[in-house]
């Protein structure tokens, strides 16, 4: 096609722009200098070895994992309810209710964070893991719904009707027919809400108690130049982990589409 070559060149440059920070990450993680700049000094794995010897860092990873797992479970369950209600039932106020649940998607996160903080402080409740989980679940649920909507919409209603006709109850139909068919959607919703929660900074920054999450801990470290190479090493590990998780999520999503007998038409969102 005419103009295709030019566009392709632009697309490759754009990908370079998108990937520039991520390419630099491992370069500085393996660089022995504590100053994050070119020219590079020598190759080292010292920064990676320092990770397990930094107790505060290890603690923050644990905190983040607990929060991310809880958030993923909670927001996926809420997402299933909303997506199922949206796909299967007609009820009064459906559009405004579902729209309201999706609202955090278009609200600046700082607003969510300060408004929850105000309520928690006014009620005199102590901040801790659970407050961060509550905040993260609020912003992750819309993402889960967006993913699960397509899973539930692709579901062939006649399969469920057939199960009812053959004497299954509502619950056993859900467990035996619906759940396995939407399982790929559930897995990608779990993975994506886990990833969002693990990376979320501003809500955690406001709502965390005495034990910081990983991004909040990293935020504190960015002020000390000598700590930055360790942050780079950790960042490299995180990038590798998220790419692996996302590749898996994408794989599940495609399998789900193949299972439902549809053609693949796009990405996650």
């Amino acid at each position, binding site marked *: 096609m005419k103009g295709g070559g030019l566009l392709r060149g632009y697309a490759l440059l*754009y990908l370079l722009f998108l990937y520039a920070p991520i390419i630099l990450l491992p370069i500085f993680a393996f660089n022995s200098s504590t100053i994050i*700049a070119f020219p590079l000094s020598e190759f080292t794995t010292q920064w990676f070895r320092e990770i397990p010897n930094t107790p505060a860092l290890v603690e923050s990873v644990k905190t983040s994992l607990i929060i991310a797992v809880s958030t993923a479970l909670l927001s996926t369950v809420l997402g299933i309810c909303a997506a199922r209600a949206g796909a299967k039932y007609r009820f009064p106020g459906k559009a405004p209710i579902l729209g309201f649940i999706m609202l955090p998607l278009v609200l600046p996160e700082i607003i969510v964070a300060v408004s929850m903080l105000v309520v928690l402080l006014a009620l005199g409740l102590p901040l801790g893991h659970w407050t961060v989980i509550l905040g993260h679940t*609020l912003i992750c*649920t819309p993402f889960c719904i967006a993913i699960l909507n397509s899973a539930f919409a692709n579901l062939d209603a006649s399969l469920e009707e057939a199960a009812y006709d053959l004497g299954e109850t509502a619950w056993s139909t859900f467990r035996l027919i619906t759940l396995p068919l939407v399982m790929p959607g559930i897995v990608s919703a779990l993975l994506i809400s886990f990833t969002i929660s693990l990376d979320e900074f501003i809500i955690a920054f406001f709502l965390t108690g005495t034990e910081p999450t990983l991004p909040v801990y990293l935020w504190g470290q960015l002020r000390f130049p000598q700590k930055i190479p360790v942050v780079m090493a950790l960042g490299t590990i995180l990038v590798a982990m998220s790419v692996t998780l996302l590749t898996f999520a994408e794989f599940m999503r495609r399998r789900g589409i193949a299972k439902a007998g549809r053609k693949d038409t796009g990405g996650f969102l």
Partner: protein
Amino acid sequence: MAMSRLARSEAARGLLMVSPPALYALLLLAVPLAAILAFSFWSQDFLTIDFTPTLKNYREAFSEPLYMQLMLRSVLIAGSVTLATVILAFPIAYFVSFHVPPHRKSLWIFLITIPFWTSYLIRVFLWKVILGYNGVLNTTLQGLGITDEPLTFILYNANAVVITLAHAFAPFAILPIFVSLEKIDRSLLEASRDLGENHVMTFLRVTLPLAVPGIVAAVLIVFIPTIGDYVTPRLVGGPDGLMIANMIQTQFLKLNNAPMGAALAVIAMSIVTLIALFFLFLNRKYLRGRS
């Protein structure tokens, strides 16, 4: 009778099913938003909150030059970020939709979304490394002999905030435009070509107008979160690149003046809502004008 009972039970089941997420959003979103609104009409009296309703915070917000300056700057920066992101993203969405073979499209979309899922904090920090005085960009440009001395207009100012946010929100702009381009019936383009329009005119008169809903969605999805961004202005913005979110945080956590912070949050939210409604209105008017 049987029909209406069936309908009622369907409605009841639907409401029951949607109630957990709806109640959750009510308790953790509607209640806090209402609380923020209430707080903005109260005032801070040293360590306690004075519950007498007052417009003091709003008066202060609109009369203190610093607050208005931060608000204006946030709108301008978010506007520039949106413009840059959407203009840069459109050709990519167009390329993937029109020039990439169908079976490779989801691979491209996957490649575009991956950087977005890697630690936001670290990505922003790395932009600081790229744009810095001895940064990657400056050493490369000098190494290649393109510039003699380091460029200083790219870090610790509004430009750095725009570049970094344009990077962070790229997938948010690409995806909605891509979806709207995918929906375009390709036979319309052939028809335009058959009727004697050239490539450029076909693009301007057929493709671009049909992509408008996607472009509007992209504008909103980028603009709304960027106006409230905290991390980027703080890390790469320097003193002249700070935005309203930084001030809201300062009011809440440092100055311990929650009512003032609440008033600023409410003003920021109102501006976002007004601008969003304006765009949605334009979009609707535009769509009605065409049909």
